[in-house]
């Protein structure tokens, strides 16, 4: 079961966001993303930040100053000539190797995980009205039965948004659920357990409010309308974050959703700590109660996440990742996943990343070998 869960989550894409960039002083996603809760297309400011703060200058001609680097951060390698249209293309692929070094069980493959085309229409001062379409390729999980209707090409997100004031905005359409820290690890227990990972976007309405020291998101959703009606998870979520000591964030989320077979209640507390100079710590602890309508299951799972990002110099981030998962808190068995990683933004449009994961199960009545895996990831965006 553990491996099925792992495989299901590996063969998918998500709307990536980089919550660790609080280490650069950005407490909110709104500065850099059209979606105030992060992920999806970057706005113009976000593209410039990615070029001038996040990425290394290894491939930058020496004759370019930072203004030139910022100018070249646009889609067509220049500042857009009009204000109302933005386009982006995004690709991710990785080589995943499971059980590396094992003569019997080593398994390696390259997976094209994401190829998105994004179109953003925006009007008004400070992008008051936006319309976002994110359409692309995402491979189906390998266990998907043959003959399944699902297409590998689909809308990742499509929504419209209107900011009534700079502090308050409403968004409607297909979006990620508002819950917890959107870490980039799509296999994170903190994303899988509450069902807020790569393929869990929902149609709904999202309200976003940002105050001086706090930020609130509330979302009502009716499930993903491309799914069969009985499978659609309907419900709502609320997330509140508060800025503490000027540069850090603490937050809490709660989400309730259900379809004809399943009822989920998730809640978590999280923090994002700014260690300055681009370094940060992310932590989340939460639970998900899962009830089946036929009464066959009523369990509460607990998940934890601790990530550190250390930035020795521009473009490079060293990661350490520790995750905890207990499928049923009435039982003592639990799983730990941990490992180091390195993320290198070679230039604005090229991210290279390597992660090692060791998954260890602690069970009272059985013992299993550690499961090792490494990923070499390439992310290109234009």
């Amino acid at each position: 079961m553990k491996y099925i869960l792992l495989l299901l989550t590996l063969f998918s894409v998500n709307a990536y966001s980089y919550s660790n960039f609080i280490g650069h002083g950005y407490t909110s996603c709104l500065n850099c993303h059209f979606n105030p809760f992060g992920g999806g297309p970057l706005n113009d400011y976000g593209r410039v930040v990615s070029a001038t703060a996040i990425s290394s200058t290894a491939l930058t001609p020496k004759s370019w100053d930072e203004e030139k680097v910022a100018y070249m951060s646009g889609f067509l390698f220049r500042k857009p000539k009009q204000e109302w249209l933005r386009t982006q293309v995004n690709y991710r692929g990785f080589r995943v190797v499971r059980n590396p070094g094992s003569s019997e069980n080593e398994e390696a493959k390259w997976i094209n995980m994401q190829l998105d085309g994004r179109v953003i229409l925006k009007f008004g001062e400070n992008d008051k009205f936006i319309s976002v379409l994110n359409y692309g390729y995402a491979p189906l999980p390998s266990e998907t039965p043959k003959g399944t209707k699902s297409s590998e090409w689909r809308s990742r997100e499509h929504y419209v948004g209107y900011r009534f004031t700079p502090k308050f905005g409403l968004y409607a359409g297909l979006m990620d659920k508002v819950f917890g820290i959107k870490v980039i690890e799509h296999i994170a227990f903190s994303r899988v357990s509450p069902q807020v990972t790569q393929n869990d976007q929902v149609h709904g309405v999202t309200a976003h409010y940002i105050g001086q020291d706090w930020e609130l998101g509330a979302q009502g959703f009716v499930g993903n309308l491309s799914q069969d009606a009985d499978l659609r998870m309907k419900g709502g979520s609320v997330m509140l974050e508060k800025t503490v000591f000027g540069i850090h964030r603490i937050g809490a989320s709660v989400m309730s959703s259900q379809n004809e077979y399943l009822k989920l209640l998730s809640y978590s507390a999280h923090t994002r700590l700014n260690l300055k100079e681009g370094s940060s710590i992310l932590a989340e602890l939460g639970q998900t109660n899962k009830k089946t309508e036929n009464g066959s299951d009523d369990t509460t799972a607990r998940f934890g996440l601790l990530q550190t990002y250390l930035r020795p110099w521009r473009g490079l981030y060293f990661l350490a990742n520790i995750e905890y998962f207990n499928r049923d808190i009435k039982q003592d068995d639990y799983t730990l996943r941990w490992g180091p990683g390195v993320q290198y933004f070679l230039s604005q449009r090229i991210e290279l990343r390597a992660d090692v994961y060791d998954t260890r199960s602690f069970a009272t009545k059985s013992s299993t070998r550690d499961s090792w895996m490494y990923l070499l990831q390439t992310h290109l965006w234009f």
Partner: protein
Amino acid sequence: MKFIMMVILLLSSIPSFAEEKITLFVTLSPAGSFQAVSKKAKGNVIKENGVFTADKISVSIESFKTGIDLRDEHFWKHMQSSTNPKATLSNLKASGGKGTAQLEVNGKKNPVTIVYVEKGSEILAKLIVKASDFSLPKAEYLGVGVDNLVAIEVALQFKAR
């Protein structure tokens, strides 16, 4: 054991020199913040009979670093460093945790009040200013703006007389 004791003794005898620096706490809108830090303040703070004084403490605008090179350049340009390359705090007089001084930024001089704490041989002063009081225009870049209120922290060594 003797060696360990010597190491502990040596380590404990190293004086803890505080770093002299000026930090500007800048709030962004819609959200976020950055700090502009300079470690190149020039001037002397004197403590005499419990009163801190300084004739002139100056700092080069272009010595401030914000963590992003492009933002450094924008910051210096916004502060008009080419025509007014220095910010100056003058006529500082402080006692009992409070004080007054004149702050000159962008060629405009305004009276400011400070609060401070004394830590060993260091004085840590704090003040809040309005950028508009120094004829600095509203700052915005690609939709991300800067708050008019800026908190300033000054950490300097003082000489006691």
